[in-house]
Structures are given as C-alpha cells and as structure tokens.
C-alpha cells in the first residue's frame, strides 16, 4: 500500500507537469494553428534560467526564490513568447504545412543551441526542489514531498484559471473567436494580433512553469533531456486532439501515472533489462498509439487549395548531364582539396542520400516524416549486424531471411508502380533473385565473424536498405491514415523510440526463428554497447579505407544514381500518383486510387533509401555512437535544412546534406582559425565561431524555411540563363578560366585560398554577366513597333495644344469614354 501511494503520488506529480506543459501547447495551437515544436525547448530554457538565478556562482545566483520565480515566469517567459510570435510565427498562417512545421523546429534547435552555448561545460547543475529535499509530509508510511504537493496544487489552480480565462473573460473568448474567424474578430473591433500575442505569452509561461517544476525531479540539468521531457507533454495534448483542455489534463495524468506504475512493476526498469529504457519512452509510445486511435479529420477538398507548391521536374537528359558534370566536378575537386575537406564533403553527400528519402516522401508525396535518421540508423545497425560485425551466423538461414525480406519488399513496393499481375510476379521474383545472388556471392556468407570483417560489402548496403525498408513499412502500416501534423508527430514518436530503445539498448536479445532450423537462433546485441564499428567498403580492388578521395567519388556517383532514379520515378505514372496524393487526397479518393497502397510503398521505398544512405554514412565515418550521428536532433536539423534547400528537388537534398555536414563546421573553423591568429580579436572570433556552429542551422531554418521552392533550386535557376545560345561565350570563357585556375592549383602554382578566390568569383560572375547582357539586348528591343521613331516625351502643354487643335474637350472624362466603349 505504501508503495502504491508513493508511486501514485510520483505519477500524479509528473503527470501534472505534463498537463501544464501540454495545456500551453494547446493554447498556442488553437489560437494560431501552429504546433509549437519549440514548446519543450522554452521549458528547458526557463529551467536553466531559473537555475542560473538561484544557484549559479556567476551572474545571478542566490536570488530569493519568489523573485527568481516571478522573473522567470512573468518576465522572461512572456517576453520569449511575444518575441517568438512577432518575429517568427506571425505570418505563418497562410503557409504550407511543411513550413509551419519547419519554422518551430528551427526555433527549437535555436533554443538548444543558445542553451548549449550559454551553459557550456560539464559542470553539474542541480536545481533543488521547493523547500529543500527534506520538506515532506506523510500519508501513513508514504512520504510526500512539498515539491510534489506544490506541483499538484499548481496544476489544479492552473486548470481552473485556464478554464476561467478561456470561457469567462473577454481575452479568452477573443482567443477562441480568433480560431473561428479571424477577420470577423477584426470586423467586431477586436485585435487578433493582440490575442495571438496573449496566447503565446500564456503558452510560454505554461512551458516555463513545467520546466521549472520538472527540473528538480531530474538528477542534473541537461539541455536535450529537459527538452525531451517536455516533449512528453505532446502526447497529452494529442489526448485532447490539441483542442480540448480537460482531456489534455487527463492525458497528462494518464501518462504520468503509467510511467510511474511501470517503474513500480519493473523495479525502475531492472526487472526486464532490455525494456529498461521504456520508462523514458513510454510517453512517446502512448503518443504513437493515441495518434492511431484518434478519430481523424475527414479529408477536405479545400485543404490544399490555398497554397500550391509547384516543383518543376528536370528532363532525363538534363538530370543525366547535371549528374555527369557533378561527378566530374567532385573528382576534379578531390585532386586539390585536403583529406579533411574530402571527408567533410563525403559526409555531406552521404547525408544527401539520406535527404533524398525525404525528397521522395515529403517533397514528392507530401508525407511528413521527422524520423529520417532513425531509418538511417536502422540501416547502419543492419549493415553492422548482418554484414561486417555480426553476432548472427551468416549461413543459409541468413540468406533465406534476406530473400524473404526482398520478396516482401517487392510485394510492398512494386504493385504501386502499376505493373500487371504476371509481370509483378516476375519482377518480385527477379528482384529477390538478384538480392540472393548479391548476398551469396558478394558477401561470402560462410564467415561467422564477430566484428571481424575488415570491409563492408555491397550486400551489406542492400541488406541495410531492405531491413530499413521493412521497418519503414511496419511503422507506416498503422500510420497510414495519418496525415500532416499527426503523421509528423507519429514519426517523431518513432524517432524518439529508436533513440532510446534501440541506440541505448545494451542487452543481447535472442530470437528463435521457427522456420530455419533449431540451432540458428538469432541473438543480437543491437548497439554493441554504445558504439558500432562499420568499416569502409573494399571492392573492385579499391581500398576505400585508405583513399578518402575514392570514397568521395564513389558516394557522389551513388548520389547521382539515386537522384536520376528519383527524377525518373517522379516522371512516371507512379510519380504522378504521388503528386496527386499530395495535392488533393480527397480528389484521389474519389478517383478510386488506392492511397493506402501508394503510401505504404512510398514509405517503404523512402525508408529503404534512408537505410542505404545511413549504412553508407556510417561506413564513411567508420564508427557510430548512440549519440552521433543518427539522433533525433540531427534528424530534425537535416529535415529542416533539406526544406531550406528545397525538399521538392534532388538539389534540395544535396544542399541540405552538404550544408548540414560541412557549411557550419567550415564557417566555425574559419572563425576559429582567425581567433587563433588574431589574439586581440579573439573574443569576437570565438563568438562568431560559436555562433555559426551552434546557431547557424537554426537561423538558416528560421530565415529561409519559408521559401517554398527552396534555396537550392533558386541557385540553380540563377545558372539556368547560361544555357541560352547567346551566352555560350560567357559560359565557355568562364569555365575555361575556372579550369585554368584548377589546373594551376593541381600543379601547385598557388594554394587553396587563391584557387577559391579566383574560381568562386568567376562562378558567380557568369550568370550576372549573362543577365547584364540580356538586359542590354532587351532594352534595345523594348520599344513598341508603332512607337518606333517617335520616342519623345510630350509635355502636358503640348498635349493640350494638340487636343485643342483637334477640338477634343479637355474634360473628356473616363466615364464618358467607358460609355463610348460600350
């Protein structure tokens, strides 16, 4: 009984915090239609700020609790909310769903960046509960701390206050009215902007309350841990369909209690070690299932009507030409850049391959997926487990498993391409056969090595794609009816699940596969105690492990193959179906398209691409850890930067991958180097270095995420002008100069800086020059035919003189002219 009371109280307390946080989420969502992904980060930031004011030795420190509380909750938090609303969120109403998601994600990453920046170092920051650790009272033998008591009281008070605010005060009613009909509020004389500000201030205060209350329940403050903790509240908000506050509060309590009772049953995760992380994952598991059970909004025809992103599709010739140019340029560059740059670029390209999966899924098919790197991680793990360093015996059993996977992959994906039944069968069988050949002959399946193989084989990549694809299908299957934000949240939940349950898995799991003999049990230590070593490939007699340039060129070729294939896919009837599904699911449904099958296939395919890219990425890095490079945060950043680059184009994936892996690191390094060289300006350069490393991606997201077609395609568009015949001279001269500069660098006439300083200006001058020439030609031909020869500005006097001579009255007015016309 005592235990029951203790665990119930703990559950109620955490649940109450979730309720408070999710109430804030609901308030902002209902009044602005924006799901504030940054909500958790605001809570985290407030908790840190409170700690700073109360306990830090430096600035602030030892403020009395009431004053610190007042400052954090009623000064800092509302200001954050208001600034966010004015600077970032205002004007997001009429944008696409993706943008509405990306901007708050960018803000979240921004907060994380700032917190990491301000509160650097490994110092332990331990906030104390209210009235200290020993302030308790008891029911029977069960002790209840004052902190817990306060949490519950605050939650109850806030629930009552919110209810009162929203239903009994003019402010609250206006907020609800804004949701109904913003322009009518204005016609009533109300101020919707002010209502939005108020709601963001309130939402932000609630996040801060949650953050401050929850932080003492953790051991010490951690930026990511705290952010994720408040993310748990998202599940509670979904309980209330992001609208209903009472249900939201109940949802919060349900989550808090489930976690607490789970801890009780499992003795804080010790009973079933492989499930030990479930106590941190349970909220997102609940989130996933609540999303599935939630009655969905009906398909609405008007849904996508206001914003149409139109992505032009390049022709197959163009994509082939560009691909060849790309590979040539990368090869040429590999001759003149250092190993470090080569490895950064390779990382960018492997990330770009993963980003291609988002181009297919989000750009082409309009399905949001926030877990690209979860699938990439699964791919990398599969490659490790089944190829290079497995605990699995790679015998006939393994081959059978892979062939079964290949068949199911074919069955899932191929029908959507619209093959007739007989050819479908043929396609699936031949696909499985190819995979079989690959696995048997290119893998050398006889080995039983445990972390022994020295290089990755091609079949490792194929296996990565197949397994990741199948898991993509398994995740997508229940989520098929979800769309938009709900789908994004479901995939987000999955990503967190993978982060915790897979990457942090330390147990060896043993399965008995029934069909494949007795002694072929599979026992897997999924993450091999926190680090996987995945070696580079070694085929065609090229040792990729020693030659970074070879890896770079190999990866760039793979990127091009995938890109061309995707563009081809987009132009096929399958691609058109995807576009149709993106534009108007309602219309597709009435046309009798089988959207479930389409969605399932595109999900599988995208997950397979991500898995392939993930395995390649891991193999390029050689080792992956539980916290790098496939975490949820990195995934969100990659998603965001791909949107910035233009998620509807393969160039967007290229841009996203490269920017993600290199740009900010390079910029940071650049300032870091300056800081070393220029001691007197050190503070400035170090500041800039931190600024670009920590805040660069977030700022790029906030600043550029709104651009519907993305930055990548715009840059490309800029160069398109050079295709014209008129500008052939510009193109030829420019390219020759650049090749010359490259050549001088190769024979080491000068160093890398000179190369950059000569070739980059030429590159960007070419389109400008062409444009200038165009303008010149245009202005010469601009005169209308009938005006030729009489280009002359007539003065008013002259006109009235002519009018008088022609006896046209000067008050000949517009109305009369109109009637004449009729």
């Amino acid at each position, binding site marked *: 009984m005592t235990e029951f009371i203790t665990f119930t109280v703990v559950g109620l307390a955490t649940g109450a915090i979730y309720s408070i946080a999710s109430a804030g989420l609901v308030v902002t969502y209902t009044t602005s239609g924006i799901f504030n992904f940054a909500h958790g980060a605001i809570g985290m930031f407030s908790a840190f700020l409170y700690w700073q004011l109360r306990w830090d030795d430096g600035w602030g420190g030892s403020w009395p609790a009431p004053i610190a509380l007042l400052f954090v909750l009623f000064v800092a938090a509302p200001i954050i909310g208001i600034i966010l609303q004015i600077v970032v969120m205002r004007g997001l109403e009429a944008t696409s769903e993706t943008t509405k998601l990306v901007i708050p994600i960018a803000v979240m990453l921004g907060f994380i960046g700032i917190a990491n920046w301000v509160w650097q170092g490994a110092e332990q920051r331990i906030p104390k509960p209210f009235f200290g650790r020993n302030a308790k009272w008891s029911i029977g033998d069960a002790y209840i701390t004052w902190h817990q008591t306060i949490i519950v009281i605050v939650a109850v008070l806030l629930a009552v206050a919110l209810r009162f605010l929203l239903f009994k005060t003019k402010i609250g*009613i206006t907020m609800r*009215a804004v949701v109904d009909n913003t322009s*009518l*509020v*204005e*016609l009533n*004389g*109300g101020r919707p902007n002010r209502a939005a500000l108020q709601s963001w201030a309130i939402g932000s205060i609630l996040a801060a309350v949650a953050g401050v209350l929850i932080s003492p329940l953790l051991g010490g403050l951690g930026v990511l841990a705290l952010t994720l903790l408040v993310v748990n509240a998202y599940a509670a908000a979904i309980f209330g369909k992001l609208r209903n506050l009472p249900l939201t509060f109940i949802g919060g309590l349900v989550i808090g209690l489930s976690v607490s009772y789970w801890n009780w049953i499992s003795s804080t995760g010790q009973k079933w070690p492989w499930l030990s992380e479930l106590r941190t994952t349970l909220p997102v598991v609940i989130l996933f299932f609540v999303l599935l059970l939630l009655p969905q909004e009906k398909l609405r025809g008007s849904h996508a009507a206001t914003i149409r992103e139109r992505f032009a599709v390049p022709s197959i010739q163009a994509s082939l030409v560009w691909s060849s140019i790309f590979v040539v340029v990368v090869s040429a560059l590999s001759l003149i850049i250092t190993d470090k740059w080569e490895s950064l670029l390779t990382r960018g390209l492997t990330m770009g391959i993963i980003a291609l999966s988002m181009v297919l899924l989000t750009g082409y098919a309009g399905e949001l997926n926030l877990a690209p790197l979860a699938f990439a991680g699964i791919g990398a793990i599969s490659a490790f487990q089944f190829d290079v360093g497995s605990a699995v015996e790679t015998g006939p059993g393994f081959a059978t498993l892979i062939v079964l996977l290949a068949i199911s992959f074919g069955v899932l994906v191929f029908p959507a391409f619209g093959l007739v039944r007989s050819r479908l069968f043929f396609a699936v069988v031949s696909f499985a056969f190819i995979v079989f050949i690959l696995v048997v002959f290119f893998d050398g399946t006889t080995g039983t090595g445990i972390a022994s193989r020295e290089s990755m084989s091609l079949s490792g990549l194929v296996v990565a794609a197949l397994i990741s694809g199948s898991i993509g299908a398994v995740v997508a299957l229940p989520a098929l009816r979800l769309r938009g934000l709900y789908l994004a949240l479901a995939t987000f939940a999955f990503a967190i699940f993978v982060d915790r349950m897979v990457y942090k898995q330390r147990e060896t799991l043993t399965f008995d596969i029934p069909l494949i003999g007795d002694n072929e049990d599979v026992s897997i230590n999924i993450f091999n105690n926190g680090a996987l070593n995945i070696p580079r490939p070694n085929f065609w007699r090229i040792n990729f492990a020693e030659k970074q340039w070879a890896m770079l060129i190999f990866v760039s070729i793979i990127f091009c193959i995938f890109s061309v294939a995707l563009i081809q896919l987009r132009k096929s009837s399958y691609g058109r179906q995807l576009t149709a599904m993106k534009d108007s699911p309602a219309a597709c449904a009435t046309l009798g398209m089988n959207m479930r099958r389409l969605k399932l296939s595109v999900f599988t395919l995208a997950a397979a691409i991500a898995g392939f890219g993930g395995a390649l990425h891991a193999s390029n890095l050689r080792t992956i850890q539980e916290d790098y490079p496939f975490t949820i945060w990195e995934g969100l950043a990659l998603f965001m930067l791909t949107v910035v680059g233009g998620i509807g184009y393969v160039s967007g994936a290229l841009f996203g991958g490269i920017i993600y892996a290199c740009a900010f690191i390079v910029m940071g390094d650049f300032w870091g180097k300056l800081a070393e060289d220029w001691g007197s300006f050190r503070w400035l350069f170090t500041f800039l270095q931190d600024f670009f490393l920590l805040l660069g991606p977030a700022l790029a997201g906030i600043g550029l995420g709104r651009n519907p077609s993305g930055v990548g395609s715009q840059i490309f568009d800029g160069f398109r002008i050079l295709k014209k015949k008129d500008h052939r001279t510009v193109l030829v001269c420019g390219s020759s100069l650049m090749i010359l500069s490259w050549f001088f660098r190769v024979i080491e006439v000068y160093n890398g800086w000179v190369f950059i300083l000569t070739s980059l200006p030429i590159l960007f001058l070419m389109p400008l020059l062409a444009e200038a020439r165009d303008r010149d030609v245009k202005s010469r031909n601009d005169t209308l035919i009938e005006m030729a020869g009489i280009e002359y500005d007539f003065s008013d006097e002259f006109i009235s003189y002519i009018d008088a001579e022609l006896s046209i009255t000067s008050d000949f007015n517009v109305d009369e002219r109109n009637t004449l016309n009729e």
Partner: protein
Amino acid sequence: MIPLLSLQRITAGYGEISILKDVSMELFSGQIYALLGPNGGGKSTTLKVCSGQLLPTKGELIIAGKVMNGSEPNALARAGICTIPEGKGIFPNLTVRENLLMMTSSGVSIEAIEEVTYRRFPQLSSRTNQLAGTLSGGEQQMLAMSRALSTNPAILLLDELSMGLAPLIVGQLYEIVQQIAEEGVAILVVEQFANIVLEIATTAGIMTHGKLIKEGIPSEIQKYLKHAYLG
C-alpha cells in the same frame, strides 16, 4: 452636407489582378445605398475596401471627411463602421452570449447589447448558451444583425443578407435595416437579388466587372437592371 463614407476613384484587387477599377461613390447619413450586380462583379470587394480589409492600390477611402486609407479594420470598426460579411457573420464555436460579448469591443456594454438583441429577436433569448453554429440559418443571421442594432454604428455595410434565407425572414431583416437607417445611419447594402432592396433603398448602383456602370434612384435602376445582367 459631407458624405459619411466616400470612395474616390478606388482601384483595388488581389495580388496582381485589379478587381475594382476607378470606383467612386458617396454615402450620406440616413441613406440606404443598394449595390447590385452579377456574381463576381466586385461588390464584396468594394465592401472589403470600405471596411479596411483590402488596401486600395489607388484612390482614397474617406470617412466623415477624413482620409482613412490603410487603417486597420478593427480600428475602423471601433470608429463606427459595422460590417456584416458575406456568409455567416458569427463565430460558430462560440455560444450566443459569447458572440454578443465579442461585440463589446465597439465600446458598448454587454448588458446594453443583450437588452437590444433580445428585445429585437426574442427567440435568441432562450438560446444564450447554445453554440452559434447550431442555430438555424435565420437565427444566425439575426445574431449577426444584432451587432448592427446594438453597437450604434455610424455606417453599416451589409453583404448578401438574404443568402439562403426564406423570403419572410429576409423581409423582416430588411425592415430592421430600414429602421436603422431612420436613426441616421448610412447603410450600404450588397445584394444580387434586387427587388427586395430596391423597395427600401434611397440610391442604387450597378457594378459589373469592377466598375460602377450606373448610379441613380431605385426606380431608374430597376429598369436598367435587365440590361446589366444580360450584358
């Protein structure tokens, strides 16, 4: 006498496309101006310009002698322009009482608003806590009209009051409009179906393709109408 509302050579549109071209009109206290015309003629767009929802690209919006271009719609509303937009001028997810409460932004107390509303439309008084979206079409329009009645506007802009309603109710509503005009309010009424409004209007205009092609007394306009609709 200066007009309460006047448009001076207004050009306005959405994005690149101009819908209204060089529209001028004047509206005096106590006058009911009926703006008629076929679908897509630009009538609602004219009202949007008057209520501040759409910024004209050229020309001036003058209210009681003052140029008000660029004023926020909510500022204009508080200054005494009451607009009942096309469709439902109510908040469907708010209760009747909360809808009335939203009208207090104009500066009138909720008691006064309730008093006027329930006196004029007794059938709403038994539905104070019902969601407005669940009211019948007629009741919803009554609720919308109660803003015109209770907030003492100087100018009233009405868009398609009759949409989807039975003739009997339409008659009632326009009777009320006439009474409001008698108190000295300047009223601009947009309708597609001319007959009802032309009975109460003091002036009428016909708008097609974003131009005010004809202005005059109602009886004259009536004659001209057929021509306009067919042309």
